[in-house]
């Protein structure tokens, strides 16, 4: 069935569908509905919701719940995410699965509450300390919020690693029809969890490895796991990319805008196409390089001063010119605006 649903609410519904019965969080606009709906819904299916005293406490509660074998989630936005970074590093170091949602708002500092994509570095490149990666998924619709959150729980468990839903104020606040059915979601056994039982008494959750050799061994183990994840989990979609002269690249809300830009441009006889990364880590580098092969130019559009841009350049490795257009501060470009910009830049070349 379809129900009209807000992006942030879809995340909570997905969590419940995925069997998550533990939510620990702290309010922040524009992510607060996630905490509010988790508070309303999760206890009604027998789960735990707790408003922590800070994001620092919240992510450490997530660490505790994950240690205990629970599927667990928290949600926040920029300033709160900065506070969680230490905890996320501990989760990765201790190989604990968890889902963290970042509904990105404008920064740095208090910034504002309007949409930006400026947490890309912090989330995709790992804003915490040490050699680790987050699995990062970027929804662009309410349905995506639902599906990718369920996927995030699955991938987090599969790789025993934190997975982040990186979204923004627009996708979070937007309402769209959500196709939702009761579904069976399998949860893996977690024989490593610490549950306070005779069977799990031998278990230990820790991220400390005192000797250089021990820690190197551990970091290499994580590295191998991340390589495996890179091999299997890169996700993307394309729109009219086959014959595109200019390939637009954008994720999240921007990919929606760019889809409309492609339509407008094609009405004017300009062959644009779209490449939308769905997983930001692992980045679909190979697919992007392949898709870009036939085009003459790639243009990245981002709500940041050029963060994902670096991954696009790495993926293309100098094989194509990469142009960049950005809006920040909470301004989201319209499809017409991007189209006009591309047109103006082409004019400038003539």
């Amino acid at each position: 069935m379809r129900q009209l649903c807000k992006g942030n609410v879809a995340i909570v519904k997905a969590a419940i569908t995925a069997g998550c019965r533990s939510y620990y969080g702290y309010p922040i606009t524009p992510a607060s509905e996630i905490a509010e709906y988790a508070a309303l819904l999760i206890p009604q299916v027998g789960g735990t919701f707790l408003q922590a005293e800070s994001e620092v406490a919240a992510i450490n509660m997530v660490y505790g719940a994950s240690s205990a074998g629970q599927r667990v989630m928290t949600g926040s936005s920029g300033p709160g995410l900065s506070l969680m970074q230490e905890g996320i590093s501990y989760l990765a170091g201790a190989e604990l699965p968890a889902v963290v949602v970042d509904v990105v708002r404008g920064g740095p500092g208090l910034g504002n509450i309007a949409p930006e994509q400026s947490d890309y570095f912090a989330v995709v490149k790992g804003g915490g300390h040490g050699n680790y990666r987050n699995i990062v998924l970027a929804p662009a619709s309410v349905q995506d919020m639902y599906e990718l959150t369920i996927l995030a729980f699955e991938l987090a468990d599969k790789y025993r690693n934190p997975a982040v839903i990186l979204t923004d104020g627009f996708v979070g606040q937007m309402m769209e029809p959500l196709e939702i059915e009761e579904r069976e979601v399998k949860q893996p056994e977690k024989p490593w969890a610490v549950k306070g039982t005779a069977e799990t008494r031998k278990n230990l959750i820790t991220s400390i490895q005192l000797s250089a050799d021990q820690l190197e061994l551990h970091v290499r183990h994580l590295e191998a796991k991340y390589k495996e994840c890179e091999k299997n989990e890169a996700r993307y979609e394309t729109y009219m990319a086959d014959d595109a002269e200019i390939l637009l690249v954008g994720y999240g809300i921007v990919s929606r805008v760019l889809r409309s830009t492609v339509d407008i441009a094609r009405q004017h006889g300009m062959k644009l196409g779209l490449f939308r990364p769905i997983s930001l880590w692992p980045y679909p580098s190979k697919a992007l390089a392949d898709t870009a092969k036939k085009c003459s130019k790639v243009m990245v559009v981002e709500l940041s001063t050029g963060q994902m841009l670096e991954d696009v350049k790495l993926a293309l490795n100098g094989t194509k010119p990469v142009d960049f257009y950005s809006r920040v501060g909470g301004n989201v470009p319209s499809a017409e605006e991007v189209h006009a910009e591309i047109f103006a830049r082409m004019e400038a070349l003539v």
Partner: protein
Amino acid sequence: MSEYQVAQQKSPVFYDRYFRKDELQHQTHYCPGCGHGVAHKLIGEALAELGLQDRAIIVSPVGCSVFAYYYFDTGNVQAAHGRAPAVATALRRSNPESIVVSYQGDGDLAAIGTAEIIHAANRGENITVIFINNSIYGMTGGQMAPTTLIGQTSTTSPWGRRANNEGFPIHMAELLSALEAPVYIERVSLGDNKNILKARKAVRKALELQKQGAGFSMVEILSPCPTILKMDPVVARKFVNETLTKQFPLGVFRDRKPEITVVNPPQRSVAEVLGIKKETATAEEKAARKAFTHDVTMKIAGFGGQGVLLMGQLIAEMGMREHMEVSWLPSYGPEMRSGSAHCHVTLSHERIGSPLITKPQVLVAMNEISLRKFAPQMAQGGLILYNRDKVPEDFTLEGARVVCVPASEIADQIGSAKVANVVMLGALLEETECLPVETAWGVIKSFVKNEKLLAFNKEALEAGRKYVDEKVLVGACCQPDGCGY
């Protein structure tokens, strides 16, 4: 070994061998005379006596006791600096049968983790905190702790702790005892054997209370740190008993159960909570409905409180029930608090690209500010519905039609200013024919539960349609009176 008579066994809660270092499998990493080893022993013995070994989870902190898990043959979780109470909170809530011990030093608990300990105590978490107060940072080599005494030197208080610079030593047992929820808080000392026996009892009592599910308990243990304090173990013990206890008096600070009224949320099935209902329409029925709807992009704007966001949601819901693709995007946050609000609504038979509408085909302007602000954005041939009987004298616009519908006035006549948005909805449906009016009524019925308000809504929807039918002339374009040619 056979010539020895073993009078007291090692607690079975400890491993037989400690694998932290290959060469030191029978000894801990603690310095000679350190209090941590004694405190571990008290916990181990209490867990064994109470039969809690299988159920126990020790949360090791950051500090000298970071390696507690090498010794305790229990479930073990190592936590970030200061966060053990948060980790313990979730461990205990995830498995209510577990017995969770948050073991923390004074830097861990009383400095970096102050927020976590206070709030875990305040929530009455069913955990036991063992708080080792040695008045100094041990692991990092002797920096000042929040419990360091006035005048006591450390590597970061080279002239001794000065109240004018670092403030006074912090009293955690007293501080937490000011809260409602904790059931048991005692401060004990490891300064001599008599006190160690008292400490033993306190640790046991705290764990017993947790076993009963009584609530939050903490034992603050004044503990010697001879290496860092540069004292021999005997002097360090004496320092604890004679000097530390003067600043941190021993005793029971809390021993009572608070009155708690338990409120449990209702329990429902997953399908109920997710709002999942059976789908009835077939693909043919859905396709057939296409004839009654058409694509449109809209912006709906006005003052907060005029129901513009809700009006957008009603339209989006209608579109969805007519099997269209729809999107609704609100303005949000402080922008709304300043008094104005707007939303973008798209109805389409195709997958929707950008939900952000910059060239609306329809604008609903519930006030003059919105009319002036958004009218210049209109798509060629667009339609503006304006909440007045005429547009302002100086207002002109090319390329779009303005239909004036005094929705607020009509709503007032009906008897509820609240339904102005529904008057406008009626007008919009009549004018654009983008959706069937019966669908609107169906949606309103599922949104509005109050009978009286529902009656007002019905009247409003009709009034809006009728006004457009009767009062607005066909082909009306933008003239000050709102309906000239």
